[in-house]
């Protein structure tokens, strides 16, 4: 089974557009995980805040939306 094609792509999603300096920091962080391919930046206002990075097998998720969803689940 061939590895998923997203391994060749890292996706970064934020609620607001990123400044170039911030983009550099993120690129450095992604590079530190051993990944050296292309990075795609998307703006998703629905996330309300924080950042979500999909790199290979890892997801780094500090978005407010995820936190709120989890909160709702624990209260249910």
């Amino acid at each position, binding site marked *: *089974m*061939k*590895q998923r094609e997203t391994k060749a792509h890292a996706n970064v999603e934020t609620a607001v557009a990123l400044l170039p300096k911030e983009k550099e920091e993120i690129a450095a962080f992604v590079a530190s995980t051993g990944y050296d391919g292309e990075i795609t930046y998307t703006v998703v206002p629905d996330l309300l805040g924080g950042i979500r990075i999909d790199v290979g*097998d890892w*997801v780094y998720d500090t978005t407010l939306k995820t936190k709120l969803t*989890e909160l709702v689940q624990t209260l249910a």
Partner: protein
Amino acid sequence: MAAKSSYQDELLKKVESFKPTTEARQVGHVETVGDGVVKLSGLPEVAYLEMVEFANGTKGIALNLEEEAVGAIVLGKYEDILEGSEVRATGQLLSMPVSEAFLGRVVNPLGEALDGQGDVEFKKRYPLEKLAPGVVFREHVNTPLQTGIKAIDAMTAIGRGQRQLIIGDRNTGKTAIAVDTIINQKGEDVVCIYVAIGQKTSRISNLVATLTKYDAMAHTIVVAATANDPAAYQYIAPYAGCAMAEYFLDQGKDVLIVYDDLSKHAWAYRQISLVLKRPSGREAYPGDVFFLHSRLLERAVKLDKAHGGGSITALPIIETQANDVSAYIPTNVISITDGQIFLESDLFYAGQRPAINVGLSVSRVGGDAQNKAMKKVAGNLRLDLAQYRSLAAFAQFASDADEATKKQIDRGSRMMELLKQGQYVPMPAEKQIASIWAGVNGKLDDLPVAKVQQFEKEYLEYLDARYKKTMEKLKKEKKLDEEIVKDFEAAVADFKKIFVA
């Protein structure tokens, strides 16, 4: 007003104590979905049998760890899992919620309620896969588990901590034996767990109604994976029931667990293995189908006093095709269990119910699982009836046989008639002893065979009315001393005078 503000306070407290889960997590992505099995890419550090969670909340178990992919079975509906969706590892091995609150409830293998009475409260979770207690923890089986069925308690007695297989064709009364045993555990401080694997939902609902009717649900838990449920549920159902049993075992209790039935369990496992492309062997079962059942049944134990003294007695049920006990799964399970109760359809349709084949049925624990009185009374019964069966063919020519043979045939046919028993009427131990004592001591030899059942019923009523003290003494001491034998002799003689054939 006070109630409302306390509700708000509680909510605020919960919100404040909320800690979000770690922000970095490993994920996989779904590559293929089909037949209850999902192939994932990613998840490089997932463990064998670890629970994984799909994007829609459904859980799964990682069963196949290959170099390039992970094969997982889905615990729930797999139709709405999308290709490419995210899957995350939960870091937990599969476990079942356990608690006393489950008594009287019907749940699925994940502990979710199926009887519409709301979710069950629980504090602990027990793992589904667990190593059975080792040699050091165990003790010899020495306490009887009364089934209330004369034929079983007399000839193939079951002890607490034993594994006794119930095997036979369809519609021969396998489940009926299990149900009667469960009904008979009322007041015996034995927790009963009935695991239904791959059965019709209507059948389970009838069973629950029956148990409720005979007041047996209060000490019973039903774990159900119906024919409608995915193969993954049917695969884990017995282990879920066993995890529940181990919770009570750890409290020093005695547990009875019925697996109905393991044939369907093997089919579900075969389905999963074939879809996971594992190599298949005889009858298309995977290579580890023996281990599937042996690791389950090994968890039925009798623990020694130092470890609580509890026990789990297992009654697995296997359905044969055309009475073939030498098929693959039946032979596997026969070699694992400590004996079997073999039910024959010929006997069933000839009116002998329970349709137990005395010759092929055996209990490897035997006399150790009987109280002294029963052992004394039924000592030779099994051998005598086995011999009767082989002579039964000559019963047609009874007039041509010699005296000894004729006597054996007469006695045997009356004993077989005595061992017939209705459904849902388990008999307490002292009544069984009184009844069988009368039979083996020739008190029924002068009665026509067709009147034996009526005689037994009325004789037991007579004993209850006139010899109450004797019966209570027998019930308490479980020993057949001279005084009780004298009472029995007198009772039979008296009763025969008034019995109208």
